[in-house]
């Protein structure tokens, strides 16, 4: 096993151990406020992962993922508030609503590519943003809908719900980790390979018999699923839903997070989201102009690490491995008589 794989494996284990210990270690090290910041990072990184699935693996740059995030949020909020659903059906409603929306819009959107695709996704999300703003009876407009959380599980008399911060953290961690694991499996599957083929050259992909349109539509619905889960989680996390989360700025931020972290890598969105949210939380308490730093970081990363931070890391690891190989070859040569 090479040094690079060892380092990466050790990092992964350390990361998993840290994530599992957050509810105890973080309050001890900093304060308990940061537990909820980390939970928020997890949710937003899932949202960035939905941009990454489309852009990094299928080559479609969507600027309208906030639409499906918003449908996830509203599915949960309307389900609980207006329809009186309990926890899991509301969660399901949010996910189904965003996937259905992704299917309906995707049928039109994936007929287009590149600039046109980017723009039609913004247009769709703007249409529904304005519709949500005007139809206050359903969505509450800019003020949004607040709701009280139903319990997640209830066994007889004992109830577990997200009102317990530790339970909430592990619930979010579990769902996000499950989604990332599913995405990992997807990338390794034949379907994932077909996505990569389309990303690299869609003409060639269609010539070897792949149905580019249907595959893009599948990817679009799957990305809608990821964004919908993120939206539903965020609704549970904030106990409300608002039209402002459907604005194109929200989609734009996710694009930036995904590309800065490293598009086309599993952990890129997580890295990008963490950097930006941590910077925001650290700086915004001291200085209100933290967006300035976000803007400068985005530009610097794009200029100096065009493949994102994870891309840069991989480059370093590849160099390390190469050096190791070179040393191995050298030592082998020396032993030969």
């Amino acid at each position: 096993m090479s040094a690079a794989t060892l380092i990466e494996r050790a990092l992964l284990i350390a990361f998993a151990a840290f994530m599992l210990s957050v509810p105890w270690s973080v309050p001890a090290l900093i304060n308990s406020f940061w537990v909820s910041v980390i939970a928020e990072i997890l949710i937003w990184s899932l949202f960035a992962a939905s941009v990454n699935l489309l852009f990094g693996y299928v080559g479609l740059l969507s600027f309208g993922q906030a639409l499906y995030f918003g449908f996830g949020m509203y599915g949960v909020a309307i389900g609980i508030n207006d329809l009186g659903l309990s926890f899991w059906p509301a969660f399901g409603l949010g996910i189904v609503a965003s996937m259905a929306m992704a299917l309906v819009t995707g049928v039109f959107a994936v007929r287009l590519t590149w600039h046109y695709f980017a723009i039609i996704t913004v247009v769709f999300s703007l249409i529904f943003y304005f519709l949500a703003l005007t139809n206050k009876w359903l969505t509450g407009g800019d003020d949004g809908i607040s709701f009280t959380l139903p319990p997640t599980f209830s066994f007889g008399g004992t109830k577990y719900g997200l009102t317990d911060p530790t339970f909430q953290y592990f619930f979010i961690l579990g769902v996000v980790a499950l989604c990332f694991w599913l995405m990992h499996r997807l990338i390794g599957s034949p379907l994932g390979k077909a996505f990569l083929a389309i990303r690299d050259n869609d003409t060639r992909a269609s010539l070897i018999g792949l149905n580019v349109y249907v595959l893009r539509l599948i990817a679009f619905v799957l990305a809608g699923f990821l964004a919908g889960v993120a939206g539903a989680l965020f609704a549970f996390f904030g106990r409300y839903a608002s039209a402002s989360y459907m604005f194109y700025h929200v989609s734009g931020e996710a694009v930036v997070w995904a590309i800065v972290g490293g598009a086309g890598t599993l952990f890129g969105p997580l890295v990008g989201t963490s950097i930006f949210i941590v910077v925001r939380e650290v700086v915004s308490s001291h200085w209100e102009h933290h967006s300035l730093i976000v803007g400068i970081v985005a530009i610097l990363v794009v200029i100096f690490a065009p493949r994102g931070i994870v891309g840069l890391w991989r480059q370093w690891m590849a160099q390390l491995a190469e050096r190791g190989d070179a040393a191995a070859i050298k030592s082998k040569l020396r032993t030969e008589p």
Partner: protein
Amino acid sequence: MEKLLLLAMNGLIWGLIIALIALGLAIIFGLLDIINLAHGDFFMVGTVLAWATLQSTGNFWLAFIVAPLIGFILGALIQRMVIQPIHNAAALSIVATFGLSLILQESVRITFGPTPRRILPPIQGTVPLFGIDYEIYRLFAAAVAIVAIGGFFVFLHRTQLGTWMRAVRHDRDTAIAMGIPAKRVYVLTFGIGFALACVGGVVAAPITTVDFRGGVDILPFCFMAVIIGGLGNLPGTAAAAILLAFLEGVIQSAASPTVARISSLVLMSAVLLLRPQGLFKGFAR
């Protein structure tokens, strides 16, 4: 009826101003192949420069010289420092211009302040027009926009630099082989795009408010004009901007501004899906 006429006139004049801004976006889009998310903020910088000129010199008209000049220099600098290093890669340019948009907004918020301000129109008074009293300044704004758009097209078709810009857009490699300094053309194009948005900002400053978020609403509208007009079709872009704003004005006389915006967005999706080459393909080239 009077309300309809007033809103239609307002829409038409607003459309002329948007056309000016959208032309800047269209040349950056068409020539450099980047999606410029900071373009709305270029417009916003123009409104702020108008306000700053008025404050420091007491003369609004000076802004018509100062703002495009500063905009041109800023645009050229941004192209050299931010856009060129990323080799015009479209996906990266989206992130870079998003970052740029944040930087411009925050810089204005720091220096200018977070509260929106108003500029009084430098020409006061109204004039009777088709039975309504219409503000003279708005008519003047329309005239400025028409002159600027016309001037831009003359520049594009009658000067050496304009010809270079069209040549590089048409076929970059051949243009370079013919000895056209493509890199310099890119820098100048970005500068001119910024300058056009700034002129739009100065003209619009007395009509709208001066605010560091002033570009956020403008940006989708400019993109709509560029798409409906057809990517790279400059006369089409200008025509689409005027048409869209006029239609929104007319719809607003019967329904809310949001409904008007939704209808133009639906129109835009239809154009994208049915005529992705733009509405005016065949009319102009």
